[in-house]
């Protein structure tokens, strides 16, 4: 029986696999991501994921928006008027005046209307209006501080995966590699995994009746089929900078720690690991990250907790409430004639 919370050194054995291989995962080192989106493309190609709309979202180079049923890798772009570390800026002619990024972002934002929570999943729900005119800042002092954060997001393959816990059909399951996978032929599209996920990863696919797997929950499988035949996941294979590293989770954690230490030494004091700690609210992730700002800047929850941690308490309260209802009903009949 799996525990609902806390570290679990062998998720696959807890899920009933006899003698599983070492747990596999991703270490996404965002400090070397160049935002090429090769991972997004490779994932779609290999897994036969349908398109998720062709939109200009007005958020830097990100026209994908968010992870969703048809977006299993998503590259985020964040522009900041800040220096990363001790690096030399290599502009020959420096831009001047305050950054136009904010003004442009606001204009892009204003151009979006409709249900934005559907971004990346049902792009028809999001309309793009004409981008309003922006007042670009006047020129001023030369500016030499800019950094660009890029990060390829993916399902975290949580140690305690809420999506898997709440799935009523057993469609979501833990593989021998410790990853979390939807069985397409079993899912009946109840949608419970969607609000359960603390990262907003999994979603129900929408589209015409002919669309592959329409109506059922979809997300990254960590390329289960490729792992079974000893290949790298498609995104890791395609990544030209090894920003996406695949391997045994234990080894990745050691490598990640060494990388943070090296970055700190290079003056990138904002580098930190995210979801690497087995003592965090989800028992640590199978897919963890090196970030250079707070998680929420990348659209990630700063301190996620698996909802089922509180499930024993919830069942207990529900039991007490049920008993109260029964008592109330009995009392309504006792003692009086009318």
């Amino acid at each position, binding site marked *: 029986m799996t525990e609902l919370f806390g570290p679990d050194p062998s998720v696959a054995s807890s899920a009933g696999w006899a003698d599983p291989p070492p747990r596999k995962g991703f270490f996404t080192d965002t400090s070397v991501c160049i935002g090429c989106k090769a991972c997004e493309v490779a994932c779609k190609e290999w897994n036969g994921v349908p398109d998720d709309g062709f939109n200009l979202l007005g958020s830097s180079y990100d026209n994908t928006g*968010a992870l969703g049923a048809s977006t299993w890798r998503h590259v985020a772009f964040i522009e900041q008027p800040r220096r990363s570390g001790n690096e030399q800026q290599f502009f020959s002619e420096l831009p001047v005046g305050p950054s136009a990024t904010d003004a442009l972002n606001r204009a892009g934002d204003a151009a979006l209307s409709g249900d*934005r*929570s559907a971004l990346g999943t049902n792009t028809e729900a999001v309309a793009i209006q004409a981008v309003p005119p922006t007042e670009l800042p006047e020129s001023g002092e030369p500016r030499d501080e800019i950094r660009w954060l890029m990060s390829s997001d993916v399902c975290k393959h949580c140690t305690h995966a*809420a999506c898997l816990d709440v799935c009523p*059909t057993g469609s979501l399951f833990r593989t021998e590699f410790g990853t979390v996978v939807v069985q397409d032929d079993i*899912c*009946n599209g109840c949608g419970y995994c969607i609000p359960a996920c603390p990262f907003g990863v999994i979603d129900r696919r929408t589209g015409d009746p002919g669309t592959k797997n329409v109506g059922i929950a979809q997300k990254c499988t960590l390329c289960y089929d490729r792992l079974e035949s000893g290949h790298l996941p498609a995104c890791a294979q395609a990544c030209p900078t090894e920003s996406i590293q695949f391997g045994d989770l234990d080894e990745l954690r050691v490598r990640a720690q060494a990388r943070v230490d090296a970055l700190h030494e290079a003056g990138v004091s904002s580098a930190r690991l995210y979801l690497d700690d087995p003592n965090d609210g989800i028992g640590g992730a199978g897919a963890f990250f090196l970030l250079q700002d707070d998680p*929420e800047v990348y659209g990630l929850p700063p301190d996620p907790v698996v909802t089922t941690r509180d499930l024993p308490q919830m*069942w207990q309260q529900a039991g007490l409430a049920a008993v109260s209802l029964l008592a109330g009903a009995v009392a*309504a009949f006792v003692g009086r004639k009318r």
Partner: protein
Amino acid sequence: MTEVKRRRRARGGGGDGAPVVPDAKFSSYYGRPVLKAAPWEKDIPAYLFLGGLAAGSSLLAAGADVTNRPALRRSGRLGALGAITLSLAALVHDLGKPSRFLNMLRVAKPTSPMSMGTWILSLYGPAAGVAGAAELVALAPRWIDRLLPRWARWLLTVLSTPAGLSAAAIAPAVASYTSVLLADTATPSWHEARRELPFVFVGSAAAASGGLGLLAAPLAEAGPARRLAVTGAVAELAVSSRMERSMGLAAEPLHQGTAGTLIRASRALTATGALGALAGSRSRVVSAISGAALLAGSACTRFGIFEAGQASARDPKYTVVPQRNRIDAAQ
């Protein structure tokens, strides 16, 4: 990256220069939600309401059966049958692949409130169905009656009481598990309500089913329905305000937009219905109107809480701010 600043007017601040609570400042990725809202349509809040109505009605019907109140028994059993049939239809309709509904019965998983709920309903449905069918047959015109074989009629008559009592035994679980269904998610306004939500839901179920009893049963038999309705309404109102105090920031969506309108309507209808039920014990008309108000109030509660949760998932504030505060507090 966008830093979103929000200003909220402090509640109760008067005049033009109304005081403003400090800015809730937080970072987000272009203002996008961190979470995904449940893909559920109106089917689910309708189910929450109907499930509660069915459960309370089965309890009232069983009590009426034992204490010899035939009209209250009939309205309870028929109400339960109608409500549970509609709720099952709503549940299946809401699936992305309705044809695979039976896949729910592949496993029984205590970590999945939906799995537990399916099994609870699988026990409750047939019991409530038999009890309701017995009432239907008794009411049916003679020519329909003749279509049924005699043994079937006999079986229904014999089974109606045991079936009704079994339905009543399972009913409390039917009414309360739906609170866990909502609370066991990352949706802020549902998860943060987890301690009190079961009590709000059973209170709402009692008010609704008591309301139906007041609407359908004659004064001479409606006493238990009246008492159940009033107790349920008072419990719901009292626990709701306690719940809001314990929810922190996640209580905010309960007061805003569609959810806010629904919750205000639910409070007004439930309170009026309860007062009317108390005052109108000698008037069939007042009782019936109060019953209808209680039913409407219960429906508004379910839709309001549902909508508040959806709104809380769509705004990154409700995800990021409490988590950020938790980190800051720990440091």
